[in-house]
């Protein structure tokens, strides 16, 4: 099922959560709503589910106006960050809930629930209570529960946010494979750009209640619409009033055309990459180790670091590689996002 949200605005008191947002979700796609906390992504998701009525705007499901339709009638599955497990019911009853509401015959329910529990690898836990499950298991149960009623649209609100890193990665892959298998239109909310890039076909970047850009992961990374998207989707550093990716900077040991002098402040070896912190502003002062705060950094390979003998205090010359993506640095009034540390 395809979904359209058009000109949706939502206020909570004086706080504007969504400001004239228009988003199109093609049928069968796997879309991520990505952005910093408080940016409106969860609100938009809840408007799509019918859990939040928009102040203005239209929500269409498969072309039909669903703006005032209650969640019960939208056939939209919803998965919450903190699982919203029915604490007083077993795993089996949790998953069976939607089918019981629809008064399906008992054996049909049993068949479907067993099928789903096998899908999420929770067959052995059917008679356990949610409190006896780990976070990851509870979330898988929540997914099975949402899928049980064959929703036409699956919405997940920061589904892996409450889980630790290892489980998060596993479930991420698992969601991707599930989508490839079942082709249910899926939208999930996340503030982790790595997660969005890894899982989604399309990403909608949102901040402060507005859509910044919509596109595939590659489009957003290589052709960001503005400085915010560029800095949110990947690492950035700045040089000569420009934003540039730290691995798109060329490091030379002699002055060159278009290169800026900088003094190395710190060299950190991170796996096979090396991060070199630079002090650009103070490079014109005396030579020797710099005590200033680094104001830019470069990412180079170990070979490069060794070849150039990069050590604190060394002066180098830096410029963007030919054809690298650059963007004018925003003025102070514009927002710049701090990328989420992965």
């Amino acid at each position, binding site marked *: 099922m395809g979904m359209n949200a058009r000109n949706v605005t939502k206020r909570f008191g004086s706080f504007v959560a969504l400001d004239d947002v228009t988003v199109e979700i093609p049928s069968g796609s796997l879309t991520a709503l990505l952005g910093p906390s408080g940016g409106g992504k969860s609100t938009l998701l809840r408007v799509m589910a019918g859990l939040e009525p928009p102040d203005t705007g239209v929500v269409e499901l498969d072309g039909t106006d669903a703006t005032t339709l209650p969640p019960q*009638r939208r056939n939209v599955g*919803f998965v919450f960050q903190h699982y919203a497990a029915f604490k007083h019911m077993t795993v089996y009853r949790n998953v069976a809930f939607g089918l019981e509401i629809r008064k399906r015959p008992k054996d049909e329910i049993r068949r479907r629930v067993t099928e789903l529990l096998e899908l999420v690898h929770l067959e052995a836990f059917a008679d356990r209570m949610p409190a006896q499950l780990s976070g990851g298991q509870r979330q898988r149960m929540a997914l099975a529960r949402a899928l049980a009623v064959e929703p036409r649209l699956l919405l997940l609100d920061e589904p892996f946010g409450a889980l630790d890193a290892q489980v998060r990665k596993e479930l991420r892959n698992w969601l991707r494979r599930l989508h490839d298998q079942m082709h249910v239109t899926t939208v999930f909310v996340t503030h982790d750009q790595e997660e969005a890039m890894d899982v989604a076909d399309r990403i909608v970047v949102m901040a402060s209640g507005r859509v910044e850009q919509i596109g595939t992961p590659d489009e957003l990374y290589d052709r960001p619409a503005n400085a915010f998207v560029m800095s949110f989707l990947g690492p950035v550093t700045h040089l000569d009033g420009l934003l540039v990716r730290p691995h798109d900077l060329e490091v030379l040991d002699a002055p060159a055309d278009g290169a800026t002098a900088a003094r190395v402040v710190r060299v950190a070896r991170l796996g096979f990459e090396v991060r070199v912190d630079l002090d650009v502003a103070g490079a014109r002062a005396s030579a020797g180790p710099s005590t200033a705060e680094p104001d830019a950094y470069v990412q180079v390979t170990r070979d490069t670091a060794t070849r150039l003998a990069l050590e604190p205090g060394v002066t180098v010359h830096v410029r963007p590689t030919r054809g690298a993506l650059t963007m004018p640095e925003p003025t102070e009034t514009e927002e710049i996002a701090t990328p989420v540390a992965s």
Partner: protein
Amino acid sequence: MAEARSVGLPPTQSRWAFRLIALVYLAFLLIIPVGLIFWRTFENGIGPVWDALTSPDSVHAFQVTLIVAGTAVVLNTAFGLIASLLIVRHEFRGKSIFNKLIDLPLAVSPVVVGLALILVYGRNTSIGTWLGAHGINVIFALPGMIIATCFVSLPLVVRELVPVLEEVGDEQEQAAATLGASPFQIFRRITLPAIRWGLAYGVVLTLARSLGEFGAVAVVSGRIVGQTQTATLLVEQSFENFDTGKAYSVAFALAAVAILALLLMTFLRPRSDR
């Protein structure tokens, strides 16, 4: 909660002093008086007590008490469920006034309640005469006593359910809605099970309070023996008539029920605080 031997724990001397003060205070205010009542009640054996409790006016009094208290519990539980859901899950104009009004009965003297009901439903008021013409007597009859008892125990279920509902949160209910459950189905299958211990606690508290109501029914009932005399009114009447044996016996019965309620509440509280 485990007793942490914290640094704030006073040295042994003051700890013993506090303990002693607290125990002596509680002994002379609470424990000894209550114990004494039990002792006095059974001074002459169980026989007289049993006789007192099974005498016709006692039996009537217990019946009246049960009818009045039982009805009040049912009404206030229904009200309590509706009101607490409204307060916790909805926004509406005048909500804070609504909230405060519910708490009001806690601060009102029971005789004022009785007076209030007489002024509204009494024989010489417009509402009173209208109802009287339709055969419904409120004052000096059970309906008035029921309203009075509803008044004094009104807040108890609400105040118990509001924190529980807030604690439970409404995500489970939202999930149920996305799965297709109607509001009533959500209430029956999700909300009610989640709050059942808090609800039980509130109901027991309401029952105890309703059984023990005295001042308001003293004003409103007319104390018609065999018809509108509750157990509490019987205790007072027996005492005034120097029938201390009966007074103690009925008082003992009421106290026993109160202690039972207390034990139930102690059993239920940790579950409701889950």
